[in-house]
């Protein structure tokens, strides 16, 4: 988009929308939309409070733990599936099922099995993230050039060497792509988990604000969450573009 001969930055239209929000808020059309300036004032006050920092802390903890499990389990499983046909045929149907299944439905089961706490949320997060990581790592291994594997064997690489020195690196772009999508899914998973458990982290805050009709606080938390999620996804996209040279040079 050009204006007066200059290219406007890609996300700059969000400022227009913020202005529109401000106008709607000022006009007092609805109780549910306070002016965005007021929301931001609330936001700066809010992020200094202990409940908010606690919520952010527990959420970050569950998120990183969940993503950590998804990566540590997902990548090796995906690589093994790409390498071993038998394992692939055995596991692939299940990975395909879980990647398209509405995992939200599993959260009640997790709640009765693991309680109304962080454990359930961590598992939810892992469940949201892991399948795409597995699938991408598998796809990455399957596209590896046969001659690269044969090169390793002809130079006498042990299976462990082959795994860490060839497969992991040769499949790196696909693996990172999977991790990026997995992390974006994990952000949604951690919030869905908290909403359903509703006594932990942001889930508890949302419950508190909405039952007391604290609109400014509610929007402030939403803005923080959306902002964080967007930043994470853009940052990962940036990292992925940085290694994209790698994919074309293989």
């Amino acid at each position: 988009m050009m204006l007066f001969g200059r290219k406007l930055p890609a996300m700059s239209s969000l400022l227009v929308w913020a202005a529109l929000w401000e106008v709607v808020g000022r006009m007092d059309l609805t109780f549910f939309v306070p002016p965005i300036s007021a929301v931001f004032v609330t936001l700066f006050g809010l992020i200094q409070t202990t409940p908010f920092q606690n919520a952010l802390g527990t959420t970050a903890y569950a998120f990183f733990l969940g993503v950590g499990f998804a990566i540590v389990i997902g990548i090796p499983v995906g690589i093994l599936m790409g390498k071993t046909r038998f394992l692939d045929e055995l596991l692939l149907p299940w990975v395909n099922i879980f990647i398209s299944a509405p995992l939200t439905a599993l959260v009640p089961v997790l709640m009765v099995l693991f309680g109304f706490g962080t454990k359930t949320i961590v598992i939810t997060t892992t469940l949201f993230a892991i399948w795409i990581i597995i699938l991408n790592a598998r796809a990455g291994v399957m596209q590896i050039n046969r001659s690269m594997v044969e090169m390793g064997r002809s130079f006498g690489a042990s299976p462990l060497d082959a795994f860490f020195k060839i497969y992991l690196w040769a499949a790196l772009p696909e693996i990172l792509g999977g991790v990026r999508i997995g992390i974006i899914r994990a952000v949604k998973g951690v919030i869905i988990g908290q909403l359903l458990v509703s006594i932990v982290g942001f889930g508890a805050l949302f419950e508190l604000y909405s039952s007391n009709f604290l609109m400014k606080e509610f929007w402030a938390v939403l803005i923080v969450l959306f902002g964080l999620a967007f930043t994470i996804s853009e940052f990962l996209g940036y990292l992925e573009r940085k290694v994209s040279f790698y994919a074309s040079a293989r």
Partner: protein
Amino acid sequence: MQNRSLFLKLLSAAIVFGAWEIAGRIPISYAFPTFLESMTALAQMTFDGTIFVAYAETLKPLVLGIAISGIVGVAMGLWIGLSARFEWLFAPIFVVMQAAPLAALIPILVMVYGIGLTSKVFVVCIMAMPVIVLNTAGAVRNTPASIKDMAKSFLASDRDVLTKIIIPAASPIIFSGLRLGVSAGFIGAILSELKITPTGVGDIISYSRSIADYPSMYAAIFSIILLAVVFLNLLELLENTLFEGNNRGYVSD
């Protein structure tokens, strides 16, 4: 070959369901029924018809929401893909929506629209819309330049280029956007039944949990996952037959 693949699929199902059965027999938790108990509960619900009543209720917001986001989303996507101005204005909203945990909007939707059907349709819409819009816009923007040039060199009008080149070329990706939208819509529909008001399958899940009838709870969850997976796979099958060869043929091999 065919037999080996089928055999391994059956073997893999047997292992998983077997493990479920054994874990239920031990039991690893008081709230973990065996596979057979759950399947019995599912059969019972199927025979007395409760499951059909429940799905009629669950599918209502899902179908409505998908229909609305399909129509609005594809239209928005086409517009965004065609006009740089419109893209600048609207694309960021959907990009943020795509990355954001939209589930967090549910409490607000409930405050504004109450606990009825409207809120649930809204949840399905906000979950399904971003991927539909962004896929459509991307597909429109990435129409191969050479076939657009071809149409122009043979004197196509702008309308011809849109209806005879851009839309057919984009339709496989639009369709897969719709499929991903349905997938996200399922998540939204179930989430709204669990979070807003328990109706349909969400009601079976919540109610059987509250009376500790775990086999029924597992059966309901099993059935909704099965339904979603089967439906999405059918869509994918349809996609592959409809657009067979559509993405090949550009390359000059």
